[in-house]
């Protein structure tokens, strides 16, 4: 296990290095000059050059990248060009909000997705099954921007059940979690449905039924724990999918997370922030996958890590 973990962590470090290189290179090659944005319209050529020198942007790519990496290993993510703050500080201020939203969204996905999947599997081939699968398809394909605004309009503006955007209480969390969760729940319901159908065909289910157990007990005690295994790996991968959705949902609901920070930075080509957020997202994805791989064998002893 220790060797496995070490190997995976080394792989993770390599992946992060690759991500940092590609992102840094793309931002370097981008036909946009952050110095001109910092310097503003009234700056003289001298001022522009002076700022470029101070930020080290006059150096060749390799030197710039090396500087960034050496800062990175010391925990220095750099300083935002336009917000004039440490990137680590900006991210740290916003990370708790994003983690909270992710947790809420995953919970929502699991509850909605699994329930739909289980019901569809048990009513396989009926109108209920079809209706649930169509719903999940719509959920997966609906643009989050539209879903978010629709939920806001109905539940916050018209019904007044929830606050209109913002952050702070449980009530604030509900609508953004649902918006983000609806996207993923479709995948979960489809996955859960096929996994459940697969399990229901197994011999041990037939045995359990033959022993005279109630339908409820067969499903909850024997079918569900086995059917849910593939879902656990999905949660890990899901974190990666979330990063895209979070940018949109956080913007619509005014949720002060890193998705919003990234969006603002991208619009203004604030390279240190874009780099920082990309690396944090990459870490989240790598960690999510790693966790999924480590946790699965504990739940299903048939799977062993090597």
């Amino acid at each position, binding site marked *: 296990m220790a060797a496995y973990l070490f190997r995976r962590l080394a792989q993770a470090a390599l992946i992060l290095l690759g991500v940092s290189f590609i992102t840094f290179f793309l931002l370097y090659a981008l036909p*946009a000059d952050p110095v001109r944005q910092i310097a503003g319209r009234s*700056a003289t050529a001298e001022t522009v050059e002076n700022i470029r020198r101070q930020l080290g942007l006059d150096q060749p790519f390799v030197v710039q990248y090396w500087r960034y990496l050496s800062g990175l290993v010391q925990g220095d993510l750099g300083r935002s060009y336009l917000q*004039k703050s440490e990137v680590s500080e900006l991210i740290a201020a916003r990370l708790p909000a994003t983690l909270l939203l992710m947790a809420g969204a995953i919970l929502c996905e699991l509850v909605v997705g699994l329930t739909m999947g289980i019901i569809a599997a048990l009513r396989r081939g009926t109108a209920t099954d079809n209706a649930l699968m169509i719903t999940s398809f719509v959920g997966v394909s609906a643009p989050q921007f539209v879903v978010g605004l629709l939920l*806001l309009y109905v539940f*916050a503006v018209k019904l007044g059940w929830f606050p209109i955007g913002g952050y702070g209480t449980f009530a604030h969390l509900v609508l953004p979690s649902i918006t983000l969760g609806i996207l993923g729940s479709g995948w979960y319901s489809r996955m859960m449905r096929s996994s459940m159908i697969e399990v229901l065909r197994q011999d041990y289910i037939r045995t359990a039924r033959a022993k005279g157990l109630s339908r409820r007990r067969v499903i909850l005690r024997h079918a569900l724990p086995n059917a849910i295994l593939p879902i656990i790996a999905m949660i890990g991968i899901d974190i990666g999918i979330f990063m895209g959705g979070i940018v949109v949902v956080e913007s619509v*609901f*005014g949720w002060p997370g890193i998705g919003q920070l990234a969006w603002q930075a991208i619009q*203004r080509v604030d390279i240190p922030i874009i780099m920082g957020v990309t690396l944090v997202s990459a870490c989240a994805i790598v960690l999510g996958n790693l966790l999924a791989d480590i946790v699965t064998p504990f739940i299903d002893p048939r799977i062993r890590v090597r």
Partner: protein
Amino acid sequence: MKRLLATTALIATFALPALAQDYTHDPNARAGGGIVVTYKDDVATLDPAIGYDWQNWSMIKSLFDGLMDYVPGTTELRPGLAESYEISEDGMTFTFRLRPGVKFHNGREMTAEDVKYSLDRVTNPATQSPGAGFFGSIAGYDAMSDGSATSLGGVEVVDPLTVRITLSRPDATFLHVMALNFASVVAREAVEAAGDDFGKQPVGTGAFKLAEWTLGQRLVFEKNADYWRAGVPYLDTVTFEVGQEPIVALLRLQNGEVDVPGDGIPPAKFVEVMGDPEQAARVVEGGQLHTGYITLNVNTPPLDNVNVRKAINMAINKERITQIINGRAVAATQPLPPSMPGYTEGYEGYPFDPEGAKALLAEAGLADGFDTELYVMNTDPNPRIAQAIQQDLATIGIRASIQSLAQANVIEAGGAGNAPMIWSGGMAWIADFPDPSNFYGPILGCAGAVEGGWNWSKYCNEALDAMAVEADGITDPAMSGARMAKWSDVYMGVMEDAPWVPVFNEQRYTMKSPRMGGDDALYVDPVSIPVNYDYVYVTE
């Protein structure tokens, strides 16, 4: 209080003939309460030497003061931290007398040393101030700029309450420069203590002080009880909630949770809001010193032919473009907006005349038109405006392909001179101060027509540049009329060469909640956007 005001008004009238009457307090104003203002983007910085966007501009105005200031709701100068000033005969030396007893938010009294320190700081290249160039006329600026000096030679502390500033060339706009945020007076010890984070821990002499800043969520400004201007501010707190989509902000305003949406009414909701009399009544409309334009790169064939540029000017249907933004603008005839001094009254600009345009093109040997590119920023409504321009050009045979890019990429292409045509929307010029010179240098003058400069037409007419320098050399207030006439000539000269198509001058629309009080002018204040926080109040 009234007496104090009367005295100030008298000083303003006699000692400072260029200045207008000061603001008279609103008799209905009541002190207390707080308002909520929303923004989509986080606040970048509150450091007056660095902050240069419309969001932090007015926030900084409320936290800091400079030697000069504007009468609320107008573009007229009034003294700020300077109680009075004298200008030497040759217009090259300004002596400012500071108000005694003005205190920084940290309790220390402000002195002439602070004024000098603040000007040294903003012009020091290490500060990376986007506004350093505005101080170019102060003696010793060049030595600061190239790093050979650490203090401006032209700024001299005469005594604790007197500062003398000597210029290296006559500059008629100098008092406006001293009213810019970049000239705000900061407390040295606070800057040194905060280091790079002064923008997050600002200490000034302004009407409000920063009480809370939760990154990505909110900023709270709290009334400065020791503010040197008697009677203001009225509000106890101003809370800025950031990270709110404009459309959500509008919903919250309608729900009574927000008082002023800082980003304005979202374009998609504008017609709906203005169509509802109850909501429309709470929208204040005002002019702003803004011009949206198309740049025509004078170095790119066939745009290097003046007749082709004139033809393009005649092909654009400006009225139809203003319709795309729901009529929130007036068609422009020249680079200057109508409310700017120096605007040429009665000049009609190039007429909308596609047939005439075709004839001009034919005369230039381009009867079949030509292919070109139009760059545009990719945020709504700019791509839609670019399409309208594309259609207008197509009617005279010019086939323009649209390059819709992020703001930074358009700026890069414009600066490098790669873009034949750019629609300026989203990056259009809004004056830093109400003087015609501010519309020329970086965007139409030779200085901006360099690699990386903001003069995207790459237009450089040395005769006009010389006239511009002459105009700014007229420092005698009595000659202000002659100066404006000269500026008017400069812009008419520009129109003759047609490096731009001036398209429209945007109007400003500020929406407020029913509880907001104060003169309408405060809601379309030319220098405090969206509102002048120091003078608005709540009625409940």
